[in-house]
């Protein structure tokens, strides 16, 4: 099989690309300014759930595509966990073949409209871009261009279905329909496998549906990508928990030859401080699930969610940003981030922090909750926080937060969202006694193939990484698809 590097190198010498490179001088290209993503006014958007970013126009996309130098060694591609042929799709946009651009992305990425919205490109492809590395200028807006191509294709009504190899009739099960499962399912379907995705919830999409809010990733967009996978022959089964509804052994008996486990994040972490189980204190998973998956904010839906006027969200990651911005949109007077380190150390995407700041979210950095208090009905009404200062760097390379003695003070709150991370979902491991696990509850896999200690079971995403991004999970799914293919080929040959 060709490597990603070989795959990406292959298309560059094509006549149309050589022509395009010659059509404009490098100096002219580098003198163009990076396009700015148009977005809703912060004071309007913090009262609605419409998407924050509007997406760039055709004209903007073509201009942005001209900035790309189509480098002989495209370093941007090193930064992409799913190996998208970045210069190829950007040059398709420059030549105004927008559908062609989408087709290039879809060769290696099952969810382009999703990744174009939620990938941390500034830490991946755009970080490795020639502009960032050598010119010290703003990178090519690769993420915005990806989103543009995917949206253009969707709106054109001419969605292409990737080429599918002839069906080999071999059944493979994917456990969980989040980003890693969908990526694995897409690649396995392309290879000709008969793929069924089993999902515990009533909706397909995993964290893309229950976790990431509408204003960052509309559910309709996820549904279109899932529909496309159905067209590729992928089957979906909701309300089915592998390890509970049926065991792995049951499914083996039904003819499944291999499994990809992408069962994702499980138990939300709490801080184990006094009062944390008072009413009105949620995990971010619960808060976001009620609102995103169960649509609790709509009157005609049955699921309730408690209203908050003074909302504190504990944590500094993307989930914390999603939660705090959601609370503002649901009418909170005051929405605060409480994070124990400074703003520079926050793991959230810079864009999300900026968006939150513009939406009048208060940032209480270098503060940490120590205790919660409640009214006579057990509803949280106050939290005690302690100020922190930064000491020497810890194992993560970030400066360690140290509590300042005697600096505690109280804040009035009526809703708290704890967004300090999750532990892997325990259901699959609990159902497989022989599965090798780490001390953190993640599944041990061979990084090259994503194969677990049980030969026909492969795994990826948060169940292996503990907590990561959509795109890293998708990268795992793709790696596992290759691993599963090799495993099955060898097994077939051996018989």
């Amino acid at each position: 099989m060709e490597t990603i590097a070989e795959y990406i190198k292959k298309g560059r010498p094509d006549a149309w690309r050589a022509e395009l490179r010659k059509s404009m001088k490098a100096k002219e290209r580098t003198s163009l300014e990076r396009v700015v993503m148009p977005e809703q006014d912060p004071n309007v958007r913090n009262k609605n759930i419409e998407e924050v970013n509007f997406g760039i126009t055709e004209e903007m996309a073509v201009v942005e595509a001209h900035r790309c130098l189509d480098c002989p060694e495209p370093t941007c591609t090193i930064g992409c966990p799913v190996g998208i042929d970045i210069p190829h799709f950007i040059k398709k946009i420059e030549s105004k073949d927008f559908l062609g651009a989408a087709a290039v992305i879809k060769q290696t990425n099952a969810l382009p409209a999703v990744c174009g919205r939620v990938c941390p490109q500034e830490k991946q492809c755009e970080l490795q871009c020639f502009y960032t590395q050598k010119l010290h200028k703003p990178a090519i807006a690769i993420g915005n261009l990806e989103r543009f191509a995917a949206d253009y294709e969707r709106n054109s009504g001419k969605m292409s279905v990737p080429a599918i190899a002839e069906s080999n009739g071999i059944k493979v099960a994917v456990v969980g329909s989040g980003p890693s499962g969908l990526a694995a399912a897409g690649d396995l379907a392309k290879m000709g496998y008969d793929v069924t995705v089993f999902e515990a919830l009533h909706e397909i999409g995993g964290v893309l549906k229950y976790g990431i809010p509408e204003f960052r990733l509309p559910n309709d967009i996820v549904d279109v990508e899932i529909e496309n996978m159905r067209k590729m022959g992928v089957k979906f089964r909701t309300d089915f928990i592998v390890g509970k509804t049926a065991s792995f052994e049951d499914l083996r008996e039904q003819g499944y030859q291999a499994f990809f486990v992408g069962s994702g994040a499980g138990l939300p972490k709490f801080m184990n401080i006094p009062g944390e189980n008072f009413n009105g204190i949620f995990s971010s998973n619960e808060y976001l699930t009620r609102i995103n998956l169960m649509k609790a904010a709509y009157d005609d839906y049955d699921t309730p969610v408690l209203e908050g006027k003074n909302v504190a969200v504990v944590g500094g990651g993307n989930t914390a940003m999603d939660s705090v911005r959601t609370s503002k949109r649901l009418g909170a007077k005051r929405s605060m981030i409480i994070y124990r380190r400074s703003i520079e150390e926050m793991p959230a995407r810079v864009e999300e922090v900026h968006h939150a700041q513009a939406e009048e979210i208060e940032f209480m950095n270098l503060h940490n909750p120590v205790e919660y208090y409640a009214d006579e009905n057990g509803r949280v009404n106050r939290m005690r926080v302690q100020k922190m200062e930064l000491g020497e760097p810890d194992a993560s390379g970030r400066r360690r937060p140290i509590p300042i003695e005697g600096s505690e003070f109280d804040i009035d709150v009526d809703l708290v969202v704890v967004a300090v991370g999750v532990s892997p979902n325990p259901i699959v491991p609990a159902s497989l006694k022989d599965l090798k696990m780490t001390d953190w509850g993640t599944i041990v896999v061979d990084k090259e193939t994503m194969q677990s200690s049980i030969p026909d079971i492969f795994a990826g995403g948060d169940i292996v990484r503990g907590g990561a991004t959509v795109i890293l999970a998708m990268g795992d799914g793709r790696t596992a698809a290759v691993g599963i293919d090799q495993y099955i080929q060898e097994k077939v040959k051996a018989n």
Partner: protein
Amino acid sequence: MNKIIEKEFFSENVARLVIDAPDIAKSRKAGHFVIIRLDEKGERIPLTIADGDPEKGTITLVVQKVGVTSAKLLAMNEGDEILDLVGPLGKATHIDKFGTVLCAGGGVGVAPLLPIVKALHEAGNRVITVLAGRNKDLIIMEDEMRKYSDEVVIMTDDGSYGKQGLVTAGMEEVIKREKVDKSVVIGPAIMMKFGSFTTKKYNIPTEVSLNTIMVDGTGMCGACRISVGGKTKFVCVDGPEFDAFQVDWDQMMTRMGAYKTEEHEAYQKYLETVQTEA
């Protein structure tokens, strides 16, 4: 899928539903629960499985009208389909040969107790079952319980059936009479709290099955969390059964009431719509 095969009212507000769910019927064990969602706009609620038939591919749920979703479910008819039904969830009951086991069920808590009584009986235990309710109409599943129990004691608050008195009185009578090795108490939180206070006096290890608020039911959201032995536990994956003496009952009851206002308003609104339609 998930078709209601049979529906039978035990009383005005309590009914038994037999539902087509072949996968769950095969894999379920005593102690397991399911999550259901009735329609596109419905909420997800947990219900403990009362019985199952792997041959027919059905499971049995016993539902009491307490809010919008249970009211809607009880208004559904044989032949109707439940949109989403997932399970079996939670850990199965630990069944062993304990000796003499005192099982106490209050209200619809009798339904989840039935498969446990059955399993304990099949494991060779002497099973004494106390069924309690406010009045005769609220004593359910007596015949099934008699089938798997060595003795059944009935307690009603008003004395309209069996003996008059609370479940705890019935339990204590048995404990005073003979050696009890283990107890299982299932019912409303307040009944489990006082039921386990009774067994604690006599140092009888006691299990309870908690019915906290849940959303996903698969260990993801933490809505069901509860303090057990000073540690936060998730009822959906760590339970639903716990050592009764370790449960923080006051916290449990406070958390059960988290949406009291919202639930009440929603139910009133539902009743109004039903009346307008009628």
